[in-house]
């Protein structure tokens, strides 16, 4: 299993890694986002909840630079450099940002069926220019750390749903993504496997001082995050600090040590 990053906060960083201001997005006459304002701090885990059509996935896609808002800004500050407004970047720049700074874990995994587990993970590094041998080494390490040692050469079809999601998590983390976006990452899994995958996802992201933003329908899954954002009709209804949140749990563990 991935160990918690030594620098990971028992106290959350107050510096926002993503700041969304007045986000608006319409599909025809339907408003998917209607003036969303949101700050997400570095090292924080945030769950986005809401009924179907509330704008959850649109918000996730907009924060991740997959979609551009009709109006508003999304400032990203992952380094000491000046924050960048993702909403103003062109298609190529946003693609570059996604592969270099962000990690993604989707419900369907979106793994390439023809590739082996290790090739799926190393692909993320090779796209960023890492030579094949080095990429293979790092990918193998990540798969081993996520409990998939010995399964590197298996094709995706030869893995269980939970194992495939671990491969997707390894692919999202192998590039050192500072922010990981997850869309229903446990949605297709049974509850025991889902809990296991969620634990791995939290440990490999916020556990290493990075940020996790997750869309989910499952209140139990959301309760594992530091904060839960409730959306309805494209607006934020409420933001609740979850009691069982990952950072809170780590704080509690730190206090007892």
């Amino acid at each position, binding site marked *: 299993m991935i160990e918690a990053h030594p620098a990971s906060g028992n106290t959350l960083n107050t510096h926002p890694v993503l700041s969304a201001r007045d986000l608006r997005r319409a599909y025809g006459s339907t408003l998917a986002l209607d003036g969303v304002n949101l700050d997400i701090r570095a090292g924080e885990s945030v769950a986005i909840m809401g009924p179907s059509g509330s704008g959850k996935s649109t918000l996730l896609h907009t924060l991740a630079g*997959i979609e551009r808002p009709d109006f508003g800004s999304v400032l990203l500050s992952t380094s000491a450099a000046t924050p960048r407004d993702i909403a103003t970047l062109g298609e190529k720049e946003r693609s*570059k940002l996604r592969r270099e700074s962000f990690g*993604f874990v*989707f419900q369907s995994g*979106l793994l*390439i069926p*023809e*590739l082996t587990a290790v090739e799926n993970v190393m692909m993320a590094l*090779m*796209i960023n220019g890492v030579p094949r041998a080095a990429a293979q080494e790092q990918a193998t390490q990540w798969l081993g750390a996520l409990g998939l040692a010995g399964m590197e050469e298996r094709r995706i079809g030869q893995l269980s749903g939970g194992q495939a999601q671990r491969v997707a998590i390894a692919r999202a983390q192998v590039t050192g993504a500072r922010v990981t976006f997850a869309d229903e990452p446990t949605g297709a899994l049974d509850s025991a496997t889902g809990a296991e995958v969620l634990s791995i996802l939290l440990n490999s992201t916020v556990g290493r001082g990075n940020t996790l933003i997750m869309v989910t329908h499952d209140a139990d899954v959301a309760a594992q995050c530091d904060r839960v954002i409730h959306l309805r009709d494209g607006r934020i209804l409420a933001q609740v600090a979850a009691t069982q949140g990952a950072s809170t749990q780590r704080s509690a563990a730190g206090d007892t040590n």
Partner: protein
Amino acid sequence: MRTLSLAWLLGKPSRGRRGPLLLTAGAYTLVCALVLIVTAGALSFDRVQNELTGMYQVLAALAVVLLVVPLAVLGAAAARLSARSQDTRLSTVRLLGGTPGLVVGITMLESAATALAGALGGVLLYAAMAPAVGLVHFQGSAIGSAMWLDPRIIALVIAGVVLVAALSGAVGLRKIIVSPLGVRNRTVTPKPRWIRAVVVLGLIICISLVFSVIGSVASLAIMVGVLLTGFAMGIGALNLVGPWAVALIGKAKLKKAKSPAQLLAARMILENPAQAWRQVSGIAMTAFVAVVGGSGAALMNSTGTGMDPNSPDALLATDVMTGVLLTIAVSFISVACSTAITQAAATLDRADLYAGLHKLGMEPAVMERARVGSVMAPVIGMGIGSIIVSAALVFPLAGMAIIFAPLSVAVILLTLVVGVLAVRGAVAMTPVSQTLAH
């Protein structure tokens, strides 16, 4: 009746299906036009009656037979594309209690209707091309008005194209599973077996023996007969060795892959070497026809120097060369069409994955390079491989052709290059970016 009314209901072209439908109908248009032209050409040999008329008919029949394979491959690919492009509708039919038989019926009807529309377009294309093709010289004179077929034969060709399309529709459906929850590809991939290698070795020995006697054959007619026997065995060997050779190309590419696109392309080839082979089999067979037939024709042309140019033997030599060039051209057009259709289906199959990978930050250009590489690496590899193997098999013949008729050999090689470029153009017709735009 229920199948017919459902097929009518489901067959209405929507915006998303317009592209695949046009592509499929367009492919049938070309195939029908080509079959009509080749049939007209074949039947035109009855114009002149001499001792070689039988030989002409055999060669013409061979050219027609050669066209059936790409037509069947094209039909199956078209049916798969047709089913893929309406997967949601077919799944809904299953969800509502429709039987697999009903789905097969709907697909066959739709394939037949598309083929009929395409074939009627093909008749128009044939009519437009006939005057130009009529200028081609065979047996010492232009084909001319012999290009115009009896309307009953045209009707027979249309019926044949529609029938093959409907049957291919059913065969194509065997490769996918239409369940109430969606359409997916069958994942059973037959692995090339070692027994094939043994059979191929046997065939190669036979072919070498056949061609070793060619030097001692005095009669031109027997020489052509020997060529045909070797040719048939060569095509058999190619079909057996093809998937295995494509897998070898894939493995070599995988070992050498440095970029994500190269890695992905190699894995796409290795995913199903038999399917990759089907897509390029036409190229390998055409290359074989080009080398064996072309060498023979070139040699016959050069040895015929000094012979009366209007003698039946001299005319046959010239005509075999013309026939080989036409066969290469027609074969490549069919292969290019099949490639366009197969790629359109493959791009539709992978639409969700492409969209997902784009979300992850993968540039469409990387996916495009992988897709193109997965088609063109086997095309080029198998094309060059076939030329080398064919030339080695008929070494004395090919060697003599290069020495005595270099210009003819160059023309054949140039035709092959143009053919490969046509396939490359066909691959470019369904770019990944088109999927992402949807």
